[in-house]
């Protein structure tokens, strides 16, 4: 019977040893990864997003990636941008900026919290997006000089962090980052999506 006990002890040793090794690895890998990669990736500003080029040049961009401006004047429009096997849900719209001009914009409508499709808000002009799942709210910055990002801006308007113009920043709810934008270019009377982040 001592044989059996020896076996049991060895099995337990291997079990505990591999568990400790695995958990150490599982703990240190993200730590090391975050120390090494985080800054390099963050500098590029593309953290956790993949860049998708829809068309290299707006002149040979297919019509299916575009919306007429006259249609956007009626309100935001949903377009499913398809490239190969990929589908990118996009909402095109016009933003009325504080300088009185209208700017065409497009956003990838996948919520940055958990990935639900977000609903556009505002009437004729696009103002933001609301997520139906966990209640995140994204507001589009409509001030060409940038929008205040935190409460310090009321005290010290010059030095605080500001969201860039047309950024769909998180103004409520659990989402960790801004909605992924889609680069649009105006050609003639149509707005073309040329580059997207998914």
């Amino acid at each position, binding site marked *: 019977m001592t044989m059996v006990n020896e076996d049991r002890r060895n099995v337990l040793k291997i*079990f505990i040893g591999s*568990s400790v090794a695995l958990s150490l690895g599982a703990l240190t890998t*993200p730590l090391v*990864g*975050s120390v090494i*990669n985080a800054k390099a*990736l*963050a*500098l590029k*500003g*593309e*953290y*956790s997003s*993949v860049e998708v080029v829809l068309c290299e040049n707006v002149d040979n961009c297919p019509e299916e990636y575009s919306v007429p*401006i006259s249609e956007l004047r009626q309100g935001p429009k*949903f377009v*499913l941008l398809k490239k*190969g096997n990929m589908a*990118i*849900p996009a909402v095109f719209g016009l933003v009325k*900026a504080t300088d009185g*001009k*209208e*700017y*065409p*914009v497009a956003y990838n409508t*996948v*919520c940055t919290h*958990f*990935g*639900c*499709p977000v609903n556009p808000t505002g009437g004729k002009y696009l103002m933001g997006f*609301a997520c*139906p*799942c*966990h*209640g995140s709210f994204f507001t589009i910055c409509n001030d*060409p000089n940038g929008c205040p*990002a*935190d409460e310090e801006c009321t005290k010290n308007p010059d030095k605080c962090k500001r*969201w*860039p*113009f*047309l*950024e769909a*920043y998180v103004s*409520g709810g*659990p*989402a*960790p*980052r*801004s909605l*992924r*934008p889609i*680069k649009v*270019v105006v050609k003639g009377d149509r707005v073309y999506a*040329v*580059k997207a*982040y*998914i």
Partner: protein
Amino acid sequence: MRVFVRLWELILERFHLKEFLEHPVPRYSNLNPLYWLGDVAAMSFFILAITGFALALLYTPGLSLTKTPPDPLLPGHHGEELHGKKVYDATQSYASVYQITYLTPLGFILRQIHLWSAYMMIFATLAHFFAKFILGSYKRRGGGALWLLGVLLGFLTINQAVLGYILPLHLDGILAIQIGLNLFRYFDYFGIPVGQLVVSILGSAFVTDQVIKIIYVLHILVVPAIILVLLGLKINGILYGGVAPPPIKDEELRRKAMEEKEPFYPHRFALTVGQLLLQLSVILLLAALTPLPLLEPWVPGQEIPAGVRPPWPVMWYYTYVKMIDPFISVGLPIFLVLFALVVPLLDRRGGVSIEERWIWVAIAIVYIAIIGYGTVLGFLVEIPKEITPLTRISAPPDYAVPYIGTPQAVGP
């Protein structure tokens, strides 16, 4: 007649089924309901496999748009008129499930049995997990390995439920798949590109024909195959290794209880068959009293009403995800699974009776309470931001992708 009896005896002899049918089962495990729950989960799996086979033949995945009449079980739909009948735009997947449910003979009851046995399997799996946690079944020789298999099977069961929930591509299914596709992106924030790997394997971060085909194959082939293999290993382990010892402190009494055995056939066999019949009647009763509707259809770009809730097996996760910072709450299931995996390594001293290991019984109750509290809260209240126990960590500014185009004005 004698030929058949001879044939039956031959089968029993040649396939060594007699050894299986006569293998000794401890009497206490036939009397204690805590030892019956695993059978319920396993039997549910076989009901699901049989009904699932028929459903898989009838179902066609796809995202192309078709016209579908409204769900008769779900009043208050708005749709457009076509030839004097109300119709909706819906995906091929939805139209296919509609066809199965309302236009195929026996399709309705087939789908109801499949759904209710799926819910029963999840409930039985959870109940079985807590029963074995309280009994400390991992303390016997070979019990730890079976516990490990059980945790993996439970994880796969929940996965299978979510995959199946996606397939009709109704409003809630689409939210489930979008969450599934984007959940892994939180790894990317820590520098491990798991989310990008998932996106590159599937080819899209949004549902496409390709993605739904992969989900279909995973649901009907890959995950059930893994479950079947693990279940076979587990049954083999129980067959030769025995079940958990009874929770009796007195050593003399415990040994006596363990020595008292009955043959599998007819004692345990009758119990299992009775259990299966009871289970089938409960499923049929539930299907008759509360038939589960096919939920609202969804098409890409459709506005989704606020306040949508997930089905009950993942409701607790929804609650915590909504009220706790995503960088903490997203890992809650991983934490719960990892904790379940290391329990056999932590709880090693003492006997198996409740007086000797009350602290672990308390931990098991806390574990079930975390899931139960989240489930109940998710159904009861719309969670306001104020009651969050942990405040939201605001994301560092570097995480934001600045608006990438040069803004072009088009207006006056």
